[in-house]
């Protein structure tokens, strides 16, 4: 009897380890996560506008149907990126995700405070290579460090009423992400 109880206890303990291991391994092996779903739809380092979310056309689950969305699937291996997103009349946000779909940064039109959201995206190493030149830091105010080499930028614009969806789609469609060089010291 005691022998079986001990085996049961051992099994439960081992089960706990199995549980933790599967939880930790799952994000690495998932094939239906957002990044994998968007990979065939979105070319690298280009802004691609997603279809308006409806029951038939939504690319991912849990998309907010009041928002127009475009995606830039970035790869920083060859250098940093520059993102420009015009601000729509209602509400515009730009969110950054790692290749495991973890949101590491987001900014909205109010915090950007201009007519367009403009920022530079680079890895920590690329940031470290940048010369400490005041002209460059003054020209490019906003630098975002990506914890991973690849990831997603989601540009979202709200259509407060269904009639404004076309305008929101245009706004996110006009966003651009482009490769840039690491600026050299000016002298």
């Amino acid at each position, binding site marked *: 009897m005691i022998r079986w109880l001990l085996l049961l206890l051992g099994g439960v303990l*081992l089960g706990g380890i*199995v549980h933790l291991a599967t939880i930790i391994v799952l994000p690495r092996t998932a094939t239906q996560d957002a990044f994998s779903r968007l990979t065939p739809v979105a070319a690298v380092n280009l802004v691609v506008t997603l279809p308006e979310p409806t029951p038939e056309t939504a690319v991912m689950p849990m998309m907010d149907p009041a928002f127009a969305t475009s995606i830039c699937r970035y790869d920083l291996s060859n250098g940093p990126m520059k993102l420009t997103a015009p601000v729509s009349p209602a509400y515009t946000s730009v*969110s950054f995700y790692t290749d495991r779909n973890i949101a590491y940064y987001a900014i909205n039109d109010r915090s950007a405070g201009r007519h367009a959201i403009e920022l530079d995206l680079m890895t920590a190493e690329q940031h470290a290579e940048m010369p400490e030149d005041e002209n460059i830091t003054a020209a490019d105010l906003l630098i975002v460090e990506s914890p991973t080499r690849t990831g997603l930028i989601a540009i979202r614009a709200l259509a407060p009423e269904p009639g404004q969806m076309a305008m929101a789609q245009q706004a996110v469609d006009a966003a651009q992400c482009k490769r840039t060089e690491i600026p050299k010291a000016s002298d």
Partner: protein
Amino acid sequence: MRLLLGTLFALLVAAAVGLGGTYLALSRGAAFGALRIGSWTAWPKTGTQDADPYAQASIARSGRLPVALGDGVTFLAKNDDDGRRLDGRCDVAVSGVTPAARFWTLTVYNLDGELVANSLHRYDFTSQEIVRRGDGSFTIMVGPRANPGNWLPTGGIDRYMLVLRFYDTAVGVATKEGREIPMPSIKTRSCR
């Protein structure tokens, strides 16, 4: 023989406990740092780099991109205020006021996170679309039949969830559970 049987038994228990636990945790959306207000639950940390392993696993399995915390916060409800699960064949009233935010949206999804098809092509309400009472409070009727006022159709599906998202809001990781932030109530009125 006894050793073999014993080992097999322990391994079976391990598999059942381990995989069962993972399945349960993921289907219930378990993650740390849940913020519960009334029937609504949010996991503000899920939209940050500090998302715990449970949140990361749930994000990967569902295939969604979580709303980043600098963008907004997502509240989810699967039950009404009396603990009854939301039924698409019933009229459910979502009424009250919301915490301060620049915009909010209320959306109906099935339990897989897909939008619910309906002939009106109405899947959500934004804070700008709804008709409010004089004091700023509102009622949105969620149900299968047309309702005067703010009507969000359920298409008569069995079970669904309500998702309330606040954009550009102070509600977040630092928000404490309790009465300090007002959330709309969810009441089932009548069923077909």
